């Protein structure tokens, strides 16, 4: 695949914006359109785009954590939010809510947010696992360094 200067330049701006937007979608999800699933897809899209511009090795490096870990942590968080109510004598997966005032605004936060964050992380991890692993599979989907080599300093992120 050929490197594109236009794509690379715009991706530098787009990826952080998309990640921010995905978090925005995640947080507003309970009341407005959005949620963990959609947010996760947007975030995964951001890193997929980054991979398309710079190669999956760099995208992986930018993500910092392994997508497999994201999946595990995601399911773990969802499970945790499901088990939390047990401590309060409620059946599992009951939504727990806390109300407080911040800067004059009435706010609330619930255990379902933790659940949604879990969904978000799982979706990101799942999509990126597929994308990164398909690339390693030998299809050469994404651009690479000259001569097809991943730069020395990124070798370690490829396990």
């Amino acid at each position, binding site marked *: 695949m050929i490197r594109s200067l236009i794509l690379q330049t715009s991706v530098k701006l787009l990826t952080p914006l998309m990640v921010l937007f995905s978090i925005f979608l995640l947080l507003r999800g309970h*009341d407005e*359109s959005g949620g963990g699933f*959609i947010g996760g897809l947007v975030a*995964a899209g951001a890193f997929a785009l980054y991979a398309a511009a710079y190669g999956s090795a760099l995208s992986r490096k930018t993500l910092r954590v392994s997508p497999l870990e994201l999946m595990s942590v*995601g399911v773990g968080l969802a499970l945790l939010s499901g088990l939390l109510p047990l401590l309060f004598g409620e059946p599992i997966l009951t939504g727990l809510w806390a109300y407080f005032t911040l800067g004059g605004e009435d706010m609330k936060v619930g255990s379902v947010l933790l659940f949604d964050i879990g969904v978000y992380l799982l979706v990101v*991890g799942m999509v990126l696992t*597929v994308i990164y692993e398909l690339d390693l599979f*030998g299809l050469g*989907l994404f651009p690479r360094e000259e001569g097809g080599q991943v730069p020395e300093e990124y070798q370690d992120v490829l396990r």
Partner: protein
Amino acid sequence: MGILAVVFAGFILAAFTPWITRSLGRLSGWMYALVPTGIVAYLATYTAAVQDGGAVSASFDWVAVEAFTVSLSFYLDGLSLFFALLISGVGALIYIYAGAYLEGHHHLGRFFSYLSMFMASMIGMVLADNLLTFYIFFEGTSFASFMLIGFNHYSSESRRSAWQALLVTKAGGLALLVGFVLMYMVTGTYQISEIIQQGALIQQSEFYVAIVILVLAGAFTKSAQFPFYFWLPNAMKAPTPVSAYLHSATMVKAGIYVMARLHPALSGTDFWVIVVTSFGALTMLLSAWLALQYTDMKGVLAYTTVMALGLLTMLLGIGSEIALKACMLFVLVHALYKATLFMITGAVDHGIHVRDITKLSGLRHKMPITAAAAGLAALSMAGIPPFFGFIGKEVVYEAALNGGVAETAIAGISVLANIALVAGAGLLALKPFWGSPSEAAEHAHQASAGLWFGPVVLAAFCVLLGLFPGWFGDPFLGPAVGAVMGEPTSLYLVLWHGFTIELLLSAITVASGVALYFATPAMRNHAIGRGFERAFGSGLDRGYDRVIDGILGLAKWQTRLLQNGVLRYYMATILGFTVLLVGGTFLRHELGGFAIDFSDLQIYDAAIALLIVSGAISIIFLRSRLAAVVSLGISGIGIALVYLTFGAPDLAMTQFLVETLTVILFALVLIELPNLKESVSNGGRIRDALIAVGVGAVITGLMLVALQYPFDSSMANFYAVNTYTEAEGRNIVNTILVDFRAIDTLGEIVVLMIAGFGIYTLLSYQSAGSEGEGNSEGPEGKVDQPRRETLADAPASADQPAAAPASGDANGADIAESVDKPDT
């Protein structure tokens, strides 16, 4: 809450041991032992509460949907208290022992994690008051023991043994679950404490025989009864602390516990008595004599354990008061001496890496403390007065003689089995430790404190409880027997019964056992002895292999039939069946007659429809894969637009994102592939066209017919009304996902995670395998190299002492064939 803490302490500990072990180092075993010790101390405070049939219960709902509640409920009566104390008490000593045995092992933290999981599952199981809670913990013990048996996972034999134990006990576990559901259907409750009050109802129901068979299938596989006992000797591949714990005090007793727990509900009928007693007696007799055919100390221990389980099962089958007393008493007797002997075997193995009895003698000079503990435990095992085992054997004989069930036969079988047990005790404690030191024994040295502490404590109990049987008998065993019987009773144990017929049988047993001990080497090498071992020892193991091969063959056959690897056929199968089934239903119910009404068609609806249809149609004619994918994406986007026009922005957004990602992924993959070729014959094209048209027609018809019926909006109204008040959110889709139907979402994301890991594993193996096949021009070949190395060059595990005693002599070969059967 106290009981919850008791149950979950082990699970919480399991989550942290990998980290704690690193910082505690060699002290970790001693530190972890504080947890089960604390549990023992806490549970002991309930001793008074369970006297005279008393019980304590605690309940927490963990699934509460209307009309279906699964309670995390616990019930502490004499039986569960006795087992819980045994599990946590022996557990504490095992932690100490394991810390010393596996000292310096690079996965020690992981080991403690599995061990804690196992202990917690066992405690949860014996305390459970709800059949489903019970089942979950029951399966938890299977899982944890799978991890423990396969702890040396670099060894293919360990992996095979772990699989075998898991498959056998899980198969039984599933039967048990069905039995539980049937019991629920009969009694209308899952609460064990209520079910055992309704024995008459269950025994009169039409499901009684099915319930007994299913429950016994679970109990017999778990507690290694004939013909399932082959997994237990193979499970000796586990590190010795595991064998000592799982196969003395705990896991194999789980099946005994099931039978004892449900005894008030299921026992008493002829069917129960005949089946349970005869299987128990057969198992006892076969395994006691099989034990003498082995020269691996763990092999002998394994089969004598099976013998003990057979005896316990037989006693539960007889079911008279004295038999149940003997049963509970023997549980304790056996746990004490067997855990001791296992730990001693491990200490010997740890020191000189030899477990072959024929190569060991005279160890007492180098390992005096270990030898002393071994001697005490073996005397208890052989039933010599004044040891605890003597009392146990006396009561067992009393039960056999007064059981009211085929008394002469049962007593005869018991004596025959116990004769072999006496000889087995000699093999385990006399042969290795006495006589002149063998070559191997020259290298021995006294084991560290952690390795002898547990055996010494338990051996001391073997003596003390023999001298003062009232200590345990009155407060713990009496209430336990009462719980099994379903009515309070008391148990007064005395060492000396006077000159009774039981004493005579004991004397005969010991005398014959000593004679048999000296005849053992000759019998072991005799053709009859070997034939016996081949038939009932390794033979059953080979039978297991045949069954597994058969199942795998069936699986391969049906996979080849249904999933031949060509995506086109998968699609054809799935869609073709959809057409047949849905279309067939249409015809059968004559669901015809619908009107198509275009009156409220908007111009944008038509435009979207056109978009979807044109996207779909153009795929048929496109030769470029890339163009086909984009065209498919256009259809997808059109569907997203439909969602948008009907006011479902969340669905539309998800659809947009999924479509975009799919098109990108497809495009990235397909760019590597050649253009579509005329690879399909004309006949194939016609078939594909028929399926496509069929699917279109059936689905369209389904939609149109569905629209003929009035729309039931009660669900929609429910969510619209409750979404803010119940779930604190205004986005209905999201409140459904994370609150109203969160358990569905949880299930879905777990499935996604499993799929993700599956994809990862498949692609990792593929890319490791593709190395050097020409398509590794890029870096992937080099990148993947380390993965392959981790698989191939795995370091040998530290805990592999003398897995197979040096072969060459006939006895070694025997073991290699049976106990250390290599992976086939």
